């Protein structure tokens, strides 16, 4: 695919159908043997749309999930086995959808938050779910047989609404980011007792100076990227031994590694780390940026450089960017303009 030449992000498909802003995206990590990639998008029109690539390469909306959420669907997440889709809504609930008999059916509704649920994430094993809300709380749910979900922890600590939750890719460690400008790391003590083990702040850890909107881990799980209303991305690094994954011990070890500033002119709403270690960011300036680690300056420690900036990637704010797990050079983006776009990264990105 790389014929050499300068890196280029080329728009390949424009998926239209949402009647309001598109807030969030999720690629199915396990679409099934022989199936092509499957993307879910959700938005202000209270629906979720499922997009599939036909064998001839055409993308179509195969399903519209509606009639369950009464307000904006803010985010969505596939279970690791790809069989369930969780959706978080401003109506205060999280819905679980199952594909069976050729149709998506809502098989559970998780209630408990006082108001808008903003994000939902499955743990790597699929046995735990986390949700977060404007009510400042993070809830952890245990997935039980028969589509039952039991709340096993209500995590208080953030002083303002919690924008996003994301499980670590290997460990049962959860990260939440908030309107209170902080990043919190949560782990259990091996006894199902959940605690905040680390809070990353501007004053104490060179953290963000405004709302933190999004967090994404690298595949290995030893780094994460956060992005913010302060128009920066920050890279964090942990020295924890990932081969000893049993407890939350030692997870207070995240350290600021690098701040990427000056690339976006408005709030950065989304950042996502690809399996090829390329970080994509989407922002309120309608642009997408791609970054990678600068290998040649290792003497001064790791640093990150811009690969490219795609101006006017959408007509309006970009709310979400997600790399395709089956094809790490394919990026999806969702925007206030109501469209979802698919992009292909071409050319040489690693020099």
């Amino acid at each position: 695919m790389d014929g050499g030449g300068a890196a280029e992000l080329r728009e390949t498909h424009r998926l239209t159908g949402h009647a309001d802003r598109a807030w969030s995206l999720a690629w199915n990590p396990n679409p099934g043997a022989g199936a092509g990639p499957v993307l879910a998008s959700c938005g202000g029109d209270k629906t979720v749309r499922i997009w599939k690539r036909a064998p001839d390469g055409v993308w179509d909306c195969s399903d519209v999930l509606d009639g369950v959420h009464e307000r904006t669907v803010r985010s969505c997440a596939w279970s690791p086995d790809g069989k369930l889709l969780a959706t978080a809504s401003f109506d205060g609930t999280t819905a679980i959808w199952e594909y069976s008999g050729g149709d998506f059916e809502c098989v559970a509704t998780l209630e408990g938050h006082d108001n808008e649920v903003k994000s939902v994430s499955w743990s790597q094993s699929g046995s735990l779910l986390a949700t977060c809300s404007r009510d400042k709380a993070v809830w952890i749910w245990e997935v039980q047989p028969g589509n039952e979900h039991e709340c096993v922890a209500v995590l208080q600590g953030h002083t303002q609404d919690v924008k996003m939750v994301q499980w670590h890719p290997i460990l049962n460690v959860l990260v939440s980011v908030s309107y209170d400008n902080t990043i919190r790391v949560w782990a259990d003590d091996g006894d199902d007792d959940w605690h905040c083990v680390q809070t990353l702040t501007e004053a104490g850890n060179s953290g963000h100076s405004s709302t933190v909107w999004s967090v994404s881990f690298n595949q290995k799980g030893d780094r994460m990227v956060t992005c913010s209303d302060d128009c920066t991305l920050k890279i964090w690094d942990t020295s924890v031994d990932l081969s000893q994954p049993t407890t939350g011990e030692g997870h207070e070890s995240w350290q600021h590694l690098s701040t990427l500033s000056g690339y976006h002119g408005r709030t950065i709403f989304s950042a996502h780390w690809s399996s090829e270690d390329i970080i994509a960011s989407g922002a309120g300036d309608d642009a997408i940026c791609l970054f990678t680690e600068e290998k040649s300056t290792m003497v001064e420690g790791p640093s990150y450089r811009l690969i490219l900036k795609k101006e006017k990637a959408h007509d309006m704010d970009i709310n979400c960017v997600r790399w395709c797990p089956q094809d790490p050079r394919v990026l999806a983006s969702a925007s206030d303009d109501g469209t979802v776009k698919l992009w292909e990264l071409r050319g040489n990105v690693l020099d």
Partner: protein
Amino acid sequence: MTVGMINANPVVHERPERAAHPAHAALDALDVFDTVRDIKDPEHPYSLEQLSVLSQESVSVDEKLGHIQITFTPTVQHCSMATVIGLCLRLKLMQNFPPHFKIDIKVAPGSLANEESVNKQLNDKERVAAALENPNLRQLVDDCLCSDHSSSY
């Protein structure tokens, strides 16, 4: 919702003469001001202009960059209606100008005790979206927009 008025006796100004405004293609501050000046105050039967919450100087427009900024001045230092006024301004602009415009809404420096937190809230689009889906709040905002007397252009 608060019981009783935040500012029971506001200073009310005459409705000024409308400046003659030649038709032209480019969007300018006067176009924006004309769109928002007659929004009704959430508490009073007067427009934001009459209460000096807004003036033409409150608006700046950079058409090339597609950027509109409004800085309004609440009538009292502890105005809990400031967020409602901010929502009214944002909704009115969203309804009247091309969607690609970037809109920043702030209170005038020093005009509010909790200036920083109000500014942060007014410009968090997720909170704005959620607020506009709240039926009670939406009704309040719609009332302020519907009862305006915009007839002069």
